[in-house]
């Protein structure tokens, strides 16, 4: 197991390297006229910053590979992501403040998604081809097509017209008032969770159908075990292993969805930070968010891979 973890971590190095190159090159593609635009558009900094200073702040004044070395070295050695162009605040500080909020939203959405998907998926498989199964499957296919930003917009518009109720817009941190914070986060988490649940539900159903036909399930029935025990102890544990992989694969979707939910419900997480940075063309912040999101997704996938051993005793790491 330890050797496997080490190997898995080593395999992460080239992927991380490519990810950092993708981030670096994407943002370095900024055409020269964008710098002119930045200088002309935003009067605040342009007044204090000349073209040369701005190029230096963006790190454009040295050859590409030196720029990359400096940038990645700063992050690896000092955790230094650079400084925001407008606020003069270290980007790392922003990230530390915003990351937990997006993480909370993502985690809540994931929990909601699983709470919706697994019971319905299991039910759907146990009662295959009944009316309930059809309703559940139609719901899941529908949720795949409904854009979450549309659902979010509807939640903002219709309850307010019908009942004069609208979600709270002033964000309260979890540490200040946990209850209010959770009540604020739950609506976006439910919307995000429902759209994620669609694929999970379909996979749970497929896997359950496959597992339920196995010999050991027949044995469990033949022993006279009750339905609850057969499902929970024998079938579900085996059916859930691929579902766990899916959670890892859905991590990018979860973060992408969180950006939209943060925009609709004005939650000051990474998504809102990114959108603000984009509107201000604050490239160090954009690069920081971009890199952190990619690394976070890779770490989630690593944890998912390693958790197989706990879930499935048949999996032995070599």
């Amino acid at each position: 197991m330890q050797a496997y973890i080490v190997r898995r971590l080593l395999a992460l190095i080239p992927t991380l390297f490519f990810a950092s190159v993708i981030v670096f090159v994407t943002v370095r593609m900024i055409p020269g006229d964008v710098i002119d635009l930045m200088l002309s558009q935003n009067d605040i900094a342009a007044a204090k910053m000349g073209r040369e200073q701005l190029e230096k702040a963006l790190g454009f004044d040295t050859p590409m590979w030196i720029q990359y070395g400096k940038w990645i070295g700063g992050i690896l050695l000092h955790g230094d992501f650079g400084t925001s162009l407008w606020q003069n605040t270290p980007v790392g500080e922003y990230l530390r403040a915003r990351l937990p909020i997006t993480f909370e939203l993502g985690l809540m959405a994931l929990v909601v998604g699983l709470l919706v998907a697994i019971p319905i998926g299991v039910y759907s498989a146990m009662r295959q081809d009944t009316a309930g199964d059809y309703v559940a499957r139609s719901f899941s296919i529908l949720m795949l097509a409904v854009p979450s930003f549309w659902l979010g917009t509807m939640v903002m518009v219709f309850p307010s017209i019908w009942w004069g109720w609208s979600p709270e817009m002033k964000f309260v941190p979890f540490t200040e008032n946990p209850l209010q914070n959770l009540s604020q986060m739950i609506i976006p988490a439910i919307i995000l969770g429902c759209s994620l649940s669609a694929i999970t539900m379909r996979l749970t159903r497929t896997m359950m159908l496959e597992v339920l036909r196995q010999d050991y399930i027949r044995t469990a029935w033949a022993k006279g075990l009750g339905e609850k025990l057969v499902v929970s102890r024998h079938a579900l544990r085996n059916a859930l292993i691929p579902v766990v992989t899916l959670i890892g694969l859905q991590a990018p979707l979860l973060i992408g969805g969180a950006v939209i939910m943060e925009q609709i419900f004005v939650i000051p997480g990474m998504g809102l930070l990114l959108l603000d940075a984009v509107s201000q063309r604050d490239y160090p912040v954009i690069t920081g968010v971009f890199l952190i999101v990619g690394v976070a997704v890779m770490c989630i996938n690593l944890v998912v891979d390693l958790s197989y051993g706990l879930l499935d005793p048949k999996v032995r790491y070599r």
Partner: protein
Amino acid sequence: MATLADPAVTAGAPRRRRSPLLHFIGRLFREKPLGAAGAVVFILFLFCGIFADVLAPHGMNQIAPLKRLRPPSLEFPFGTDNLGRDMLSRCLFGAQLSVIIGFCGAGLATIVSTFIGIVSGYLGGRFDLVLQRFVDAWMSFPTLIVLIVVVSVVGPGMPQIILTLGLLFGIGGSRIIRSAVVSVRENMYVHAAQSTGASTFRVLWRHILPNVLPPVIVLFTTNVGGVILAESGLAFLGLGVPPPAPTWGGLLSGSGRTYMLQGPWLALAPGLCLTIVVYATNMFGDALRDLLDPRMRGSR
């Protein structure tokens, strides 16, 4: 001997065989009615998109200040917005933009996927290993985040968005083509072609590509829905094709959102269009996958 031929055989010989396409459409309707319904909606969407200029009763940006924020009626089936623009016409022109972005983006994505998948899967070895680590890295970035970052660098506009979406979906989808290539590569006819001295290009073009076409077609269909949805998310954030172009995502954001409390129909029509089209595309794609490519059945 020919004169002794069984009359039943000679009678059967001139019978016209149905074209494979017609046969396939027949199977689609018989075996996958829901998928066929999806295909009908999909073609309807394509039709609306292509003939939006003819179908739309009003211009896409035709302003009528006296008729602003009218609820749906016979004159304006989807109502009007805060500038008195007809929502039905705007949704139809939105379909046109979605068709262009969806088809160009998905087309580009499919070409990229097929190219990377075939080269990486067929050549294998160290090249494949390194390329796949790159694909890993690329796939760990959420689509929307990459789109936001790229648009922030190159600016919003149709060509940039199509190009970015094409690359994004293309690199991610290359996995599916690669796995198909890896299994086709081991077939006898490929080894036979190699042993007769066919060039790598010839093997790829004449032997591998035709045999991975089913997953390529399926990938294209699923990509259309995905690209349309991704673009609408971007437009919703105000980073899509710039206004006044009426993209469906854009109609749900910006000024549309400001007036939704006075005119809730503004929130309904574009979202419904988007949902129906993506739903139909998904159903059609699923049916195509089941009919064309048994290996991929239930893989999503």
